[in-house]
């Protein structure tokens, strides 16, 4: 397990990141004024459902936003340098070497026409200046490090010859080959069986602690968050609605969406007769009304008799030390501990 | 049973530039075909012997303007083209329609039932596709004798094979779609599933294929006519004009050129519409 840095050094800081899309159906911000920071050696989890903007946030950080999307505002500061200001060439040097990303479907994220070893080698070719022999050794070492049995033989395999779990290990090997400081994992285990998921998560944990890599873990699975995260940012409809450390999030969630999410997930070993479902569906981002984006589905608002939720858009406010919420139930007052 | 809003916009046919061009050209051709007698300046068969091989724009003593010139027998080229559209469209559309009908039906049955029926039909498809189209058309035409009917059959009959293969392929993948399985689970008879759950999804591809085949068929009809095996000489046709004009292409370029242009533009229009059809159907509905 990674050492607990209570006040770790901030490695990556994202401020006011906004990514806009212009489609036939309308314009919207897939990522809207998102700010968070990632500390050295720690794991931050971005939690949300579809349409929350969590994947697009990661792509924005990596400079991989697909058109017709564009980052229109904000800063992504890695060690003080703004990644958004960098040229394409500079970003290519960063990708794979300082920040790496792994994706949900490993078999489709790998190139089906190249052997696995060749693809890992490619990372070395781009960022290191080694001889072929050294590269091969490093590839084998990388595969071994991710627990691939018989790495010398496996490096000649094609992606489709590998199972989902093996393919994901290869992706991790590629991502960590040049020892990046940050690993972004976008739903890395969603497509995998639960036993394989456990292996991959543990692998990520071990690799992280041995090389002190920071991890941004994107997921919709609260179990994965509970297992892996140090800090959590909950996203809804393109915005961050709550951030805090993982224990506080599970012990005392503040935002009604977070509470609703936790209430609606069945917990193993604790069967309830009925789940507390959040009514309604995620709003269409092109048709957002003024006010809080969660208002239409929020029971707490009705119970508290608040009308401000529908007229004014709440800001993300730190209402307790280390715990920020975007909700009128808490804003404007420091909640006594 | 349930009436409601239309799905997809046919309107995009008019907003996409390429499709619009196609539609306009095709509409013009269709209008010519339907109203040929009215639009046409003169009777296309009428020979103005004093004005044989007159260049475009020549005006006769009787005040008749040969807008696109005359051919070797003094027949007005423009009138010939207008009337010729009938033959081209009717023959081509009917022939392709025949092929499509047979092909879609057989492809549907073949893909859905599988087994020996599928094998038999697909071998028939293989054989048909291997034989060169023009050769088949020629042979059939010679075997069936002269007449519009035999031309249609000769041109259309071999078109079934591509349709069958295309449709069968789509049926194979659609057969396992969950909404098809749902119909099976609901006790739907085979006919219902084929016609209501599968056919609508393959029809669009078939129509696209057909629209592309019409172009080829028009050219083929022109070729048959060129060889003297197509429509009889009294009936004006683009192929006929193309063939005739060949003899004096250096002296009177307008006969071949304008009839050839008519063919090219019509085929182009059909292809443009076919392209639009490709984009129009799926994404909206299969999202």
């Amino acid at each position, binding site marked *: 397990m990674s050492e607990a840095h209570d006040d770790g050094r901030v490695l990556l800081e994202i401020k006011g990141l906004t990514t806009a899309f212009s489609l036939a159906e309308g314009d919207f911000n897939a990522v809207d004024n998102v700010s968070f920071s990632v500390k050295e050696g720690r794991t931050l989890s971005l939690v949300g459902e579809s349409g929350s903007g969590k994947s697009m946030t990661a792509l924005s950080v990596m400079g991989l936003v697909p058109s017709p999307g564009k980052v229109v505002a904000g800063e992504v500061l890695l060690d003080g340098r703004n990644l958004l200001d960098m040229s394409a060439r500079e970003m290519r040097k960063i990708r794979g070497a300082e920040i790496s990303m792994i994706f949900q479907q490993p078999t489709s994220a790998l190139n089906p026409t190249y052997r696995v070893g060749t693809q890992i080698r490619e990372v070395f070719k781009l960022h290191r200046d080694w001889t072929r022999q050294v590269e091969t050794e490093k590839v084998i070492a990388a595969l071994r490090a991710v627990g691939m049995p018989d790495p010398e033989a496996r490096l000649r395999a094609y992606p489709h010859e590998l199972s989902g779990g093996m393919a994901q290990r290869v992706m991790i090997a590629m991502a960590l080959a040049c020892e990046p400081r940050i690993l972004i994992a976008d739903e890395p285990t969603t497509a995998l*069986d639960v036993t*394989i998921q456990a292996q991959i998560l543990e692998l990520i944990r071990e690799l992280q602690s041995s090389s002190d890599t920071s991890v941004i873990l994107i997921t919709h699975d609260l179990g994965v968050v*509970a297992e892996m995260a140090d800090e959590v940012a909950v996203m809804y409809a393109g915005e961050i609605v709550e951030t805090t450390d*993982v224990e506080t999030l599970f012990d005392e969630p503040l935002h009604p969406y977070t509470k609703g999410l936790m209430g609606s997930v069945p917990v193993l070993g604790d069967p309830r007769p009925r789940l507390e479902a959040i009514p309604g569906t995620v709003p269409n981002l092109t048709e957002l009304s003024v006010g809080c984006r969660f208002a239409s589905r929020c029971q707490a608002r009705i119970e508290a008799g608040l009308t401000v939720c529908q007229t004014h858009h709440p800001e993300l406010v730190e209402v307790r030390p280390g715990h920020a919420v975007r909700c009128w139930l808490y804003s404007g007052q420091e909640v006594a501990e | *049973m349930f009436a409601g809003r239309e799905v997809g916009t046919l309107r995009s046919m008019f907003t996409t530039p390429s499709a619009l061009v196609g539609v306009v050209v095709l509409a013009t051709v269709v209008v010519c075909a339907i109203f040929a007698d009215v639009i046409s300046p003169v009777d296309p068969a009428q020979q103005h012997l004093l004005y044989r091989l007159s260049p475009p724009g020549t005006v006769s003593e009787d005040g008749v303007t040969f807008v696109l010139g005359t051919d070797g027998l003094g027949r007005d080229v423009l009138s010939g083209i207008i009337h010729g559209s009938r033959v081209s469209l009717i023959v081509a559309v009917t022939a392709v329609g025949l092929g499509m009908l047979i092909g879609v039906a057989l492809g549907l049955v073949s893909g859905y039932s599988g087994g020996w029926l599928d094998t038999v039909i697909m071998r028939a498809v293989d054989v048909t596709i291997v034989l060169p189209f023009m050769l088949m058309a020629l042979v059939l035409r010679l075997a069936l004798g002269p007449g519009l009917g035999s031309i249609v059959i000769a041109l259309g009959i071999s078109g079934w094979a591509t349709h069958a293969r295309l449709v069968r392929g789509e049926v194979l993948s659609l057969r396992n779609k969950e909404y098809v399985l749902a119909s099976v689970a609901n*006790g739907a008879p085979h006919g*219902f599933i084929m016609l209501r759950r599968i056919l609508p999804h393959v029809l669009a591809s078939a129509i696209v294929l057909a629209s592309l085949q019409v172009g080829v068929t028009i050219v083929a009809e022109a070729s048959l006519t060129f060889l003297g095996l197509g429509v009889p000489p009294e009936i004006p046709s683009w192929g006929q004009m193309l063939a005739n004009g060949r003899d004096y292409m250096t002296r009177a370029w307008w006969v071949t050129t304008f009839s050839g242009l008519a063919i090219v533009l019509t085929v182009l229009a059909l292809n443009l519409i076919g392209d639009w059809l490709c984009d129009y159907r799926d994404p909206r509905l299969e999202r």
Partner: protein
Amino acid sequence: MSDVIMRASALTKEYQVRRGALKGTATVKAVNGVNLDIRRGETIGLVGESGCGKTTLGRMLVKLLEPTSGKIEFDGKDVTNVRGRELKEFRRRVQIVFQDPFSSLDPRARIGDSMAEPLLHHGVGDKDERQERVAKMLEMVGLHRSHATRFPHEFSGGQRQRIGIGRALILRPDFVVADEPVSALDVSVQAQILNLLADLQQELSLTLVFVAHNLAVVEHISDRVAVMYLGRIVELAERSELFSRPTHPYTEMLLDAVPASHPRNRRPRAPEASELPSPLDPPAGCLFHPRCPIFEAGFCDEVVPPLHPPPSEPSRLVACHVRIREGQTRTFDEGESQK
């Protein structure tokens, strides 16, 4: 003993698979000799990872797939080879809800027509009556009757799943297989659909076979749970029994792999790659033995363990030599002290 509504006996589904251009074909047993009694009114969860055969089994029970061998009895009658009118009667009483809300509805059909289809094929009512029943069912699944004229793409995933459920239930079947009905949905929507299924099951007195890979979801909704591995059932027990005291080593492995529910419950797990063997080349004897922590050579790798109740627990079934033997030892211990 409750009334058995569906019984599968030695149900097997084999597929011929090509092993590449020159290697010929091999047989894959997606479902391998499954015996299962399903009781009237219960919810039975079928759980397992990819390749375990749960979806294949579910579809065979609904007769969407022909078994290669074996027998299916529904309500006392052998329906394995039934056709024509009897098959149609079966289909009226046995239904299925599919996993993918995006492909389970015909995109070109209005949802009202899709939902009315079962009524249409079974000759229920005339056009107006069918329309009314569709309207009522739409309301029952939490939608509005005016939605009947809309097309599937106008609805969200959760709503489409509701429509799929409505379609499956419109004939008031007795038996429904739900094939991963919530796996493709967002977490917050899953809860809505699970609640809906539970409500409808109560209201319509359904027998429900719930196929899923998410153990927490299965625990939430099931009365009994069957765990499948590579085409066989390896454990079958009452819900609470299975989750509190798993017997089969694979069940234990599954439960152990489920992520923590709270950060303080984190545990280190083994990151070593322990993968599913290829179904083309299944292990001899017990299919799980290569990954099994209590594997005993010479026994587990030679003889296929039968699905047997451990003598101390007649309501549970386990396919494990070692556990059955321990069970016998345990009852033995009551009289004579052995170990």
